[in-house]
């Protein structure tokens, strides 16, 4: 994920910890850092949420506008998810068009939300040639690892808290609307890294500099909905099965945090 420079002494120290099933700050291999979720931070957006996992900070904003359907799906609205790794978020991020990393983050998050059926695109149909476009933009403000999970939480909470604008003639009315965007269910994702032969959850930026492999597993509590393996290294079947089980174990806790932020 990152090509960040860290001193080799730090790297060795963290690597050795993991080799002996330990992590910095006394964290266990299957333990998340502190997760904080705040919704409605941007009033102009139909929905928004700021999420921090440790020092990773992401902001997701939802805009809903009138657009045209895709040619192959004339009776459905559109969901479009993008991610931007802001150059302020890390000394290694650069200005310019979205990097392959940013595109991967956005597409993995998009797949989870789409596959879980959180947005019913058929319900976004207005009339022939006219549908609602739902844009989810994920802004990475500060990078300290695990953008996949932070982004999934932010995007999901932003969508679940979004208001649904009204169409009056040609004009879109959004301000002060009480109606909610129609959503179904919830999705959580768990990202695991592998290094020193160990698999551990929620890697931070230091850990991501030397991980061999990474896997993100998204589920809705009942079924797996999206997965993405990354980097050069490999996972054994046992490691994959364990990670899948762990992702289901973590679902309820993550879901409870999201529901609390949503005020449900």
């Amino acid at each position, binding site marked *: 994920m990152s090509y960040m420079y860290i001193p080799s002494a730090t790297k060795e120290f963290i690597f050795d910890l993991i080799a002996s099933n330990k992590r910095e700050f006394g964290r266990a291999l299957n333990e998340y850092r502190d997760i904080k979720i705040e919704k409605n*931070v*941007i*009033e*102009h*957006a139909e929905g*928004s949420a700021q999420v921090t996992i440790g*020092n990773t*900070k992401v*902001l997701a*904003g*939802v*805009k809903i*506008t009138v657009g045209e359907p895709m040619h192959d799906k004339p009776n459905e609205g559109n969901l479009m998810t*993008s991610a*931007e790794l*802001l*150059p*302020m*978020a*890390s*000394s290694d991020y650069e*200005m310019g*068009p*979205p990097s392959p990393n940013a595109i991967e983050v956005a597409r993995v998050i998009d797949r989870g939300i789409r596959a879980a059926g959180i947005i019913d695109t058929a319900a976004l149909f207005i009339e022939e040639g006219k549908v609602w*476009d739902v*844009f989810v*933009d994920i*802004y990475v*403000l*500060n*990078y*300290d690892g695990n953008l996949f999970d932070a982004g999934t939480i932010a995007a999901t909470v932003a969508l679940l808290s979004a208001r649904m604008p009204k169409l009056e003639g040609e004009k*879109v009315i*959004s*301000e002060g609307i009480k109606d909610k965007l129609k959503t179904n269910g919830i999705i959580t994702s768990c990202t695991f890294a592998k290094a020193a032969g160990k698999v551990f959850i929620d890697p931070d930026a230091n850990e991501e500099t030397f991980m061999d492999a990474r896997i993100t597993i998204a589920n809705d509590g009942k079924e797996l909905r999206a997965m993405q393996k990354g980097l050069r290294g490999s996972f054994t079947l046992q490691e994959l099965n364990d990670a899948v089980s762990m992702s289901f174990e973590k679902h309820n806790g993550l879901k409870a945090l999201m529901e609390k932020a949503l005020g449900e």
Partner: protein
Amino acid sequence: MSGGGEKPELIINGKRLDGRGATDLRSLKIEPNVIKNAAGSAYVEWGNNKIIAAVHGPKEALPKHTSDPEKAVIKCRYMMAPFSSLEGHGRTGPNRRSIEISKVTKEVFENVVMLELFPGTEIDIYVEVLQGDGGTRAAGITAAAVAMALSGIPMTDVPYAVSAGKIGETVVLDLNMIEDNYSDADMPVAVKPLTNETLLLQMDGSFTKEQFKEAMEMILESGKKIHEIQAAAIKRPYQEIIERYER
């Protein structure tokens, strides 16, 4: 200036739509050091504007041909988030407006940052507008000045910026989005408070000579308050350290 349709009444009985008088600033809050990975950063809420400014560097200027062997170069990115406005979805990526604002912001800091201390390096200024409600370039410069000061990079002064404009024949300070859309003039100005020299000035619309003078006086008067809020934000992280050790 770009508002279509019928012009709404923006000043009723001497009060503006949000209850302000002509010379009143919107509420302004600055929170220091919000981006851990930056050398310095600041989050500003100016009325309904929500903006993060962050400074990275000085670091090796890349690509190499952008570097200057005699001084640091400043690179600036001002960008509106796609979800920052009430209407529509802004496309990501630079446009002509954001490129121009990035350039004039950069020029403000080329004046006050002591560039000759860091030859061959670049200093990056990032201004991300998370929510925009008029006057974002001024708010961005005000926030970036705090971020630059907190980064520890030596400066000759901490600049601030604010806009003044005209509604009908009334000169007003600090226009919000609706006022800006239907105003008869808009003029963002950045100032070096030690000398009251102007570092940025853009204007469109119409001002008489007297109205221009009045607008500049308003800006310099409000600058005292803006600068006070900036100074408090810059001091806060250090005060917190002092308090921790005095306890």
